[in-house]
Protein backbone atom coordinates (compact mmCIF):
# COMPACT_ATOMS: atom_id res chain seq x y z
CA UNK A 1 0.00 0.00 0.00
CA UNK A 2 1.04 3.54 -0.80
CA UNK A 3 1.14 6.54 1.52
CA UNK A 4 -1.76 7.93 -0.49
CA UNK A 5 -3.84 4.99 0.73
CA UNK A 6 -2.48 5.45 4.26
CA UNK A 7 -3.88 8.99 4.20
CA UNK A 8 -7.36 7.53 3.68
CA UNK A 9 -7.35 5.02 6.51
CA UNK A 10 -8.34 5.54 10.11
CA UNK A 11 -9.14 3.39 13.11
CA UNK A 12 -12.91 3.32 13.35
CA UNK A 13 -13.33 1.35 16.56
CA UNK A 14 -16.43 2.46 18.42
CA UNK A 15 -15.77 5.41 20.67
CA UNK A 16 -12.36 6.27 19.20
CA UNK A 17 -12.01 10.01 18.61
CA UNK A 18 -8.46 10.20 17.31
CA UNK A 19 -7.97 7.19 15.07
CA UNK A 20 -6.01 9.16 12.48
CA UNK A 21 -3.29 9.10 11.36
CA UNK A 22 -2.33 5.50 11.91
CA UNK A 23 1.30 5.03 12.92
CA UNK A 24 3.29 2.86 10.54
CA UNK A 25 5.45 -0.06 11.67
CA UNK A 26 7.45 -1.02 8.61
CA UNK A 27 8.96 -4.48 8.21
CA UNK A 28 9.26 -4.62 4.44
CA UNK A 29 9.12 -1.68 2.06
CA UNK A 30 9.26 -1.99 -1.73
CA UNK A 31 9.44 0.53 -4.54
CA UNK A 32 7.51 0.38 -7.78
CA UNK A 33 7.79 2.95 -10.49
CA UNK A 34 4.78 5.16 -11.18
CA UNK A 35 4.06 7.70 -13.91
CA UNK A 36 5.14 11.19 -12.90
CA UNK A 37 2.16 13.50 -13.29
CA UNK A 38 2.61 17.03 -11.83
CA UNK A 39 -1.04 17.91 -12.49
CA UNK A 40 -2.21 15.00 -10.36
CA UNK A 41 0.19 16.00 -7.58
CA UNK A 42 -1.20 19.54 -7.58
CA UNK A 43 -4.73 18.11 -7.56
CA UNK A 44 -4.14 15.83 -4.59
CA UNK A 45 -1.93 18.12 -2.49
CA UNK A 46 -4.69 20.30 -0.97
CA UNK A 47 -6.76 17.21 -0.11
CA UNK A 48 -3.91 15.45 1.64
CA UNK A 49 -3.30 15.66 5.38
CA UNK A 50 0.33 16.72 5.05
CA UNK A 51 1.45 15.99 8.63
CA UNK A 52 0.10 12.45 8.40
CA UNK A 53 1.77 11.95 5.06
CA UNK A 54 5.11 13.24 6.31
CA UNK A 55 5.01 11.05 9.42
CA UNK A 56 4.30 8.09 7.16
CA UNK A 57 7.13 9.04 4.82
CA UNK A 58 9.55 9.12 7.76
CA UNK A 59 8.40 5.68 8.88
CA UNK A 60 8.99 4.33 5.37
CA UNK A 61 12.34 6.10 5.02
CA UNK A 62 11.36 8.26 2.06
CA UNK A 63 10.96 11.70 3.64
CA UNK A 64 14.02 13.21 1.99
CA UNK A 65 13.17 16.48 0.27
CA UNK A 66 9.83 16.80 2.07
CA UNK A 67 9.63 19.86 4.38
CA UNK A 68 7.54 20.12 7.57
CA UNK A 69 5.56 22.93 6.00
CA UNK A 70 5.35 23.18 2.25
CA UNK A 71 6.28 26.70 1.13
CA UNK A 72 4.20 28.51 -1.44
CA UNK A 73 5.34 27.84 -4.94
CA UNK A 74 6.83 24.44 -4.09
CA UNK A 75 4.26 22.75 -6.30
CA UNK A 76 5.93 24.39 -9.27
CA UNK A 77 9.39 23.11 -8.38
CA UNK A 78 10.59 19.95 -10.04
CA UNK A 79 12.73 18.81 -7.11
CA UNK A 80 9.89 19.01 -4.61
CA UNK A 81 7.38 17.43 -6.98
CA UNK A 82 9.74 14.49 -7.61
CA UNK A 83 10.23 13.87 -3.90
CA UNK A 84 6.49 14.20 -3.28
CA UNK A 85 5.65 11.87 -6.17
CA UNK A 86 8.11 9.24 -5.01
CA UNK A 87 6.88 9.13 -1.40
CA UNK A 88 3.19 9.32 -2.30
CA UNK A 89 3.00 6.83 -5.15
CA UNK A 90 6.16 4.75 -5.50
CA UNK A 91 6.99 3.54 -2.01
CA UNK A 92 4.86 0.69 -0.73
CA UNK A 93 4.46 -0.78 2.72
CA UNK A 94 4.49 -4.50 1.92
CA UNK A 95 4.69 -6.04 5.40
CA UNK A 96 4.15 -4.38 8.75
CA UNK A 97 1.35 -2.84 10.74
CA UNK A 98 -0.76 0.29 11.13
CA UNK A 99 -1.29 1.31 14.75
CA UNK A 100 -4.17 3.36 16.11
CA UNK A 101 -2.73 6.44 17.88
CA UNK A 102 -5.47 6.37 20.53
CA UNK A 103 -5.95 2.70 21.43
CA UNK A 104 -2.74 1.10 20.17
CA UNK A 105 -4.82 -1.40 18.18
CA UNK A 106 -2.62 -2.93 15.46
CA UNK A 107 -3.89 -3.51 11.94
CA UNK A 108 -1.61 -5.98 10.19
CA UNK A 109 -0.37 -5.26 6.68
CA UNK A 110 0.41 -8.41 4.71
CA UNK A 111 1.29 -8.61 1.02
CA UNK A 112 0.60 -4.89 0.90
CA UNK A 113 -2.99 -5.28 2.12
CA UNK A 114 -3.91 -3.70 5.45
CA UNK A 115 -6.53 -5.69 7.33
CA UNK A 116 -8.87 -3.04 8.73
CA UNK A 117 -11.57 -5.52 9.77
CA UNK A 118 -12.80 -4.95 13.29
CA UNK A 119 -13.73 -7.59 15.85
CA UNK A 120 -17.36 -7.80 16.87
CA UNK A 121 -16.74 -6.09 20.19
CA UNK A 122 -15.03 -3.16 18.44
CA UNK A 123 -17.87 -2.22 16.11
Amino acid at each position, binding site marked *: *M*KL*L*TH*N*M*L*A*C*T*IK*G*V*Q*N*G*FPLKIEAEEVVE*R*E*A*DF*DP*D*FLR*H*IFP*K*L*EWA*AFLEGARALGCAEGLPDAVPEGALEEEAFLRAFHHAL*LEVHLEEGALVCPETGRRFIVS*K*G*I*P*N*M*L*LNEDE*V
Partner: protein
Amino acid sequence: MKLKELHSLMQDMAPFDPSRLKVQLEQYPTGADIASRMLFTIESMYNDFEGKVVVDLGCGTGMLSAGAALLGSPAVVGVDIDDDALAVALENREQFEDLPVDFVRADVASIAARDGGCAWRRLRCDTVIMNPPFGTRRKGADVDFLRAAARLVRGGGGAIYSLHKSSTRAHLQKVALRELGCSEAQVLAELRYDLPATYKFHKQQSRDIEVDLWRFVVPPGPDADEDEDEEEGQQRRQQPQKQRKQQKQQASRRREVEAEGSGGDTSEEDDDEEDEEEDG
Protein backbone atom coordinates in the same frame (compact mmCIF):
# COMPACT_ATOMS: atom_id res chain seq x y z
CA MET B 1 -7.40 2.76 -24.78
CA LYS B 2 -10.20 1.40 -26.95
CA LEU B 3 -13.20 -0.45 -25.59
CA LYS B 4 -12.18 -3.61 -27.44
CA GLU B 5 -8.71 -3.54 -25.95
CA LEU B 6 -10.05 -3.03 -22.42
CA HIS B 7 -12.54 -5.82 -22.94
CA SER B 8 -9.92 -8.30 -24.05
CA LEU B 9 -7.60 -7.42 -21.13
CA MET B 10 -10.48 -7.95 -18.72
CA GLN B 11 -11.40 -11.29 -20.22
CA ASP B 12 -8.01 -12.59 -19.14
CA MET B 13 -8.64 -11.76 -15.49
CA ALA B 14 -9.37 -14.59 -13.08
CA PRO B 15 -12.88 -14.94 -11.60
CA PHE B 16 -13.76 -15.85 -8.01
CA ASP B 17 -12.57 -19.27 -6.91
CA PRO B 18 -15.85 -21.23 -7.17
CA SER B 19 -15.05 -23.35 -4.11
CA ARG B 20 -14.64 -20.23 -1.98
CA LEU B 21 -17.68 -18.22 -2.93
CA LYS B 22 -19.58 -16.68 -0.04
CA VAL B 23 -23.28 -16.48 -0.59
CA GLN B 24 -23.94 -13.95 2.17
CA LEU B 25 -21.68 -11.48 0.36
CA GLU B 26 -23.57 -11.96 -2.92
CA GLN B 27 -20.32 -12.58 -4.75
CA TYR B 28 -21.17 -12.59 -8.40
CA PRO B 29 -18.59 -12.00 -11.07
CA THR B 30 -18.64 -8.68 -12.87
CA GLY B 31 -18.29 -10.03 -16.41
CA ALA B 32 -15.69 -8.55 -18.75
CA ASP B 33 -18.52 -7.38 -20.96
CA ILE B 34 -20.39 -5.38 -18.39
CA ALA B 35 -17.25 -4.14 -16.60
CA SER B 36 -15.53 -2.85 -19.71
CA ARG B 37 -18.67 -1.16 -20.97
CA MET B 38 -19.33 0.44 -17.59
CA LEU B 39 -15.77 1.75 -17.24
CA PHE B 40 -15.50 2.92 -20.81
CA THR B 41 -18.77 4.85 -20.50
CA ILE B 42 -17.52 6.58 -17.36
CA GLU B 43 -14.21 7.66 -18.83
CA SER B 44 -15.49 8.67 -22.24
CA MET B 45 -18.51 10.62 -20.97
CA TYR B 46 -17.21 12.12 -17.74
CA ASN B 47 -13.44 11.70 -17.61
CA ASP B 48 -13.65 10.53 -14.03
CA PHE B 49 -10.60 8.23 -14.01
CA GLU B 50 -7.77 10.16 -15.60
CA GLY B 51 -5.95 12.11 -12.89
CA LYS B 52 -8.47 11.07 -10.24
CA VAL B 53 -8.28 9.04 -7.02
CA VAL B 54 -10.69 6.14 -7.38
CA VAL B 55 -12.12 3.76 -4.77
CA ASP B 56 -13.71 0.45 -5.78
CA LEU B 57 -16.08 -0.70 -3.03
CA GLY B 58 -16.61 -4.43 -2.76
CA CYS B 59 -13.90 -4.91 -5.36
CA GLY B 60 -13.98 -8.71 -5.29
CA THR B 61 -11.41 -9.98 -7.78
CA GLY B 62 -10.40 -6.45 -8.67
CA MET B 63 -11.88 -6.31 -12.15
CA LEU B 64 -13.18 -2.73 -11.90
CA SER B 65 -10.11 -1.58 -9.93
CA ALA B 66 -7.74 -2.76 -12.64
CA GLY B 67 -9.96 -1.31 -15.35
CA ALA B 68 -10.03 2.14 -13.73
CA ALA B 69 -6.24 2.12 -13.52
CA LEU B 70 -5.94 0.98 -17.13
CA LEU B 71 -8.15 3.90 -18.13
CA GLY B 72 -5.84 6.40 -16.47
CA SER B 73 -6.43 6.65 -12.71
CA PRO B 74 -3.05 7.17 -11.00
CA ALA B 75 -4.36 5.74 -7.71
CA VAL B 76 -7.09 3.16 -7.21
CA VAL B 77 -8.00 1.60 -3.87
CA GLY B 78 -10.04 -1.61 -3.95
CA VAL B 79 -11.88 -2.43 -0.72
CA ASP B 80 -13.27 -5.85 0.12
CA ILE B 81 -14.09 -7.85 3.22
CA ASP B 82 -13.10 -11.23 1.79
CA ASP B 83 -9.44 -12.26 1.79
CA ASP B 84 -10.03 -15.11 -0.68
CA ALA B 85 -11.32 -12.61 -3.22
CA LEU B 86 -8.45 -10.22 -2.46
CA ALA B 87 -5.92 -13.01 -3.06
CA VAL B 88 -7.34 -13.40 -6.58
CA ALA B 89 -7.35 -9.62 -6.99
CA LEU B 90 -3.62 -9.54 -6.20
CA GLU B 91 -2.97 -12.16 -8.87
CA ASN B 92 -5.03 -10.22 -11.36
CA ARG B 93 -3.06 -7.08 -10.60
CA GLU B 94 0.20 -8.91 -11.21
CA GLN B 95 -0.84 -9.46 -14.83
CA PHE B 96 -0.11 -5.81 -15.41
CA GLU B 97 3.19 -4.25 -14.54
CA ASP B 98 3.11 -1.58 -11.86
CA LEU B 99 -0.64 -1.07 -12.00
CA PRO B 100 -1.35 1.68 -9.43
CA VAL B 101 -3.92 -0.29 -7.45
CA ASP B 102 -3.89 -0.86 -3.67
CA PHE B 103 -6.20 -3.21 -1.86
CA VAL B 104 -7.61 -2.81 1.64
CA ARG B 105 -9.48 -5.44 3.61
CA ALA B 106 -12.41 -3.78 5.34
CA ASP B 107 -16.12 -4.06 5.90
CA VAL B 108 -17.86 -1.58 3.62
CA ALA B 109 -20.72 -1.38 6.11
CA SER B 110 -18.28 -0.04 8.73
CA ILE B 111 -17.34 2.78 6.36
CA ALA B 112 -21.04 3.55 6.08
CA ALA B 113 -21.41 3.68 9.85
CA ARG B 114 -20.29 6.74 11.78
CA ASP B 115 -16.54 6.58 11.97
CA GLY B 116 -15.30 8.67 14.81
CA GLY B 117 -14.08 12.21 15.23
CA CYS B 118 -11.09 11.62 12.99
CA ALA B 119 -13.17 11.18 9.90
CA TRP B 120 -13.05 14.67 8.51
CA ARG B 121 -9.27 14.87 8.27
CA ARG B 122 -8.89 11.84 6.06
CA LEU B 123 -8.17 11.98 2.38
CA ARG B 124 -11.27 11.46 0.28
CA CYS B 125 -11.40 10.10 -3.22
CA ASP B 126 -12.73 11.75 -6.37
CA THR B 127 -14.60 8.82 -7.84
CA VAL B 128 -16.21 5.67 -6.46
CA ILE B 129 -16.97 2.71 -8.68
CA MET B 130 -18.78 -0.36 -7.48
CA ASN B 131 -20.79 -3.41 -8.32
CA PRO B 132 -22.39 -3.78 -4.91
CA PRO B 133 -24.51 -6.61 -3.59
CA PHE B 134 -28.04 -6.14 -4.87
CA GLY B 135 -29.41 -6.59 -1.38
CA THR B 136 -31.25 -9.79 -2.15
CA ARG B 137 -29.54 -11.84 0.56
CA ARG B 138 -29.20 -9.08 3.13
CA LYS B 139 -31.77 -6.37 2.78
CA GLY B 140 -30.28 -2.89 2.58
CA ALA B 141 -26.78 -4.04 1.61
CA ASP B 142 -27.04 -2.04 -1.63
CA VAL B 143 -27.95 1.15 0.22
CA ASP B 144 -25.15 0.55 2.76
CA PHE B 145 -22.68 0.55 -0.10
CA LEU B 146 -24.13 3.73 -1.54
CA ARG B 147 -23.99 5.41 1.85
CA ALA B 148 -20.34 4.42 2.25
CA ALA B 149 -19.57 5.69 -1.24
CA ALA B 150 -21.19 9.05 -0.52
CA ARG B 151 -19.08 9.33 2.63
CA LEU B 152 -15.89 8.66 0.66
CA VAL B 153 -16.37 11.45 -1.87
CA ARG B 154 -17.70 13.99 0.60
CA GLY B 155 -15.48 17.00 1.26
CA GLY B 156 -14.08 17.65 -2.17
CA GLY B 157 -17.15 16.30 -3.90
CA GLY B 158 -17.17 13.68 -6.62
CA ALA B 159 -19.09 11.05 -8.50
CA ILE B 160 -20.27 7.53 -7.73
CA TYR B 161 -20.85 4.94 -10.44
CA SER B 162 -22.75 1.90 -9.37
CA LEU B 163 -24.79 -1.03 -10.65
CA HIS B 164 -28.21 -1.69 -9.12
CA LYS B 165 -31.22 -3.78 -9.96
CA SER B 166 -33.60 -1.77 -12.11
CA SER B 167 -36.49 -2.74 -9.84
CA THR B 168 -35.01 -0.57 -7.06
CA ARG B 169 -34.75 2.56 -9.22
CA ALA B 170 -37.35 4.75 -7.53
CA HIS B 171 -36.17 3.85 -4.03
CA LEU B 172 -32.49 4.54 -4.79
CA GLN B 173 -33.26 7.87 -6.35
CA LYS B 174 -35.10 8.91 -3.21
CA VAL B 175 -32.34 7.73 -0.88
CA ALA B 176 -29.62 9.43 -2.94
CA LEU B 177 -31.30 12.80 -3.26
CA ARG B 178 -33.04 13.08 0.10
CA GLU B 179 -30.87 11.17 2.51
CA LEU B 180 -27.35 11.18 1.10
CA GLY B 181 -27.31 14.74 -0.19
CA CYS B 182 -26.52 13.88 -3.80
CA SER B 183 -27.12 16.73 -6.23
CA GLU B 184 -27.70 14.34 -9.13
CA ALA B 185 -28.87 10.77 -9.42
CA GLN B 186 -29.09 9.59 -12.96
CA VAL B 187 -29.38 6.25 -14.74
CA LEU B 188 -26.78 6.28 -17.52
CA ALA B 189 -27.64 2.93 -19.05
CA GLU B 190 -29.82 -0.10 -18.63
CA LEU B 191 -27.84 -3.27 -18.87
CA ARG B 192 -28.64 -6.92 -18.86
CA TYR B 193 -26.59 -8.72 -16.28
CA ASP B 194 -26.11 -12.29 -17.32
CA LEU B 195 -26.05 -14.09 -14.01
CA PRO B 196 -24.69 -17.59 -14.36
CA ALA B 197 -26.05 -20.21 -11.97
CA THR B 198 -23.44 -19.60 -9.28
CA TYR B 199 -24.97 -20.98 -6.12
CA LYS B 200 -26.87 -24.12 -5.25
CA PHE B 201 -30.15 -22.29 -4.74
CA HIS B 202 -30.10 -21.10 -8.35
CA LYS B 203 -32.52 -23.33 -10.22
CA GLN B 204 -31.99 -21.94 -13.71
CA GLN B 205 -28.75 -22.34 -15.63
CA SER B 206 -28.38 -18.63 -16.04
CA ARG B 207 -30.65 -15.64 -15.77
CA ASP B 208 -30.67 -12.17 -17.21
CA ILE B 209 -31.24 -9.50 -14.61
CA GLU B 210 -32.09 -5.94 -15.54
CA VAL B 211 -29.48 -3.65 -14.06
CA ASP B 212 -29.02 0.12 -14.09
CA LEU B 213 -25.69 1.88 -14.35
CA TRP B 214 -26.09 4.89 -12.06
CA ARG B 215 -24.19 8.11 -11.74
CA PHE B 216 -24.58 9.91 -8.42
CA VAL B 217 -22.97 13.30 -7.88
CA VAL B 218 -21.99 14.41 -4.39
CA PRO B 219 -21.37 18.16 -4.14
CA PRO B 220 -18.36 19.55 -2.23
CA GLY B 221 -18.69 20.44 1.44
CA PRO B 222 -19.44 18.58 4.64
CA ASP B 223 -22.68 16.70 4.88
CA ALA B 224 -25.10 17.26 7.73
CA ASP B 225 -24.92 13.65 8.80
CA GLU B 226 -21.10 13.68 8.83
CA ASP B 227 -21.03 16.94 10.68
CA GLU B 228 -21.99 15.24 13.91
CA ASP B 229 -18.82 13.18 13.80
CA GLU B 230 -16.64 16.21 13.83
CA GLU B 231 -15.48 17.50 17.14
CA GLU B 232 -15.74 21.08 15.99
CA GLY B 233 -19.06 20.41 14.40
CA GLN B 234 -20.36 18.96 17.62
CA GLN B 235 -19.36 21.98 19.63
CA ARG B 236 -20.85 24.22 17.01
CA ARG B 237 -24.10 22.36 17.03
CA GLN B 238 -24.54 21.71 20.71
CA GLN B 239 -25.10 25.35 21.51
CA PRO B 240 -27.81 26.08 18.96
CA GLN B 241 -29.47 22.79 19.81
CA LYS B 242 -29.73 23.76 23.43
CA GLN B 243 -31.08 27.13 22.44
CA ARG B 244 -33.59 25.59 20.14
CA LYS B 245 -34.79 23.26 22.86
CA GLN B 246 -35.28 26.16 25.21
CA GLN B 247 -37.12 28.08 22.53
CA LYS B 248 -39.29 25.10 21.90
CA GLN B 249 -40.11 24.69 25.55
CA GLN B 250 -41.00 28.32 25.71
CA ALA B 251 -43.08 27.99 22.58
CA SER B 252 -45.00 25.04 23.93
CA ARG B 253 -45.64 26.81 27.21
CA ARG B 254 -46.84 29.81 25.26
CA ARG B 255 -49.09 27.59 23.21
CA GLU B 256 -50.65 26.06 26.27
CA VAL B 257 -51.52 29.51 27.41
CA GLU B 258 -52.82 30.47 24.01
CA ALA B 259 -54.75 27.25 23.71
CA GLU B 260 -56.53 27.98 26.91
CA GLY B 261 -57.32 31.46 25.72
CA SER B 262 -58.22 31.10 22.05
CA GLY B 263 -59.25 27.50 21.64
CA GLY B 264 -56.02 26.32 19.95
CA ASP B 265 -53.85 27.26 17.03
CA THR B 266 -52.65 24.31 14.99
CA SER B 267 -50.18 26.09 12.76
CA GLU B 268 -47.60 26.46 15.48
CA GLU B 269 -47.93 22.83 16.37
CA ASP B 270 -46.93 21.92 12.82
CA ASP B 271 -43.81 24.04 13.10
CA ASP B 272 -42.89 22.29 16.27
CA GLU B 273 -43.03 18.89 14.65
CA GLU B 274 -40.69 19.98 11.91
CA ASP B 275 -38.23 21.16 14.50
CA GLU B 276 -38.22 17.79 16.14
CA GLU B 277 -37.41 16.07 12.89
CA GLU B 278 -34.42 18.32 12.41
CA ASP B 279 -33.10 17.57 15.84
CA GLY B 280 -33.37 13.81 15.43
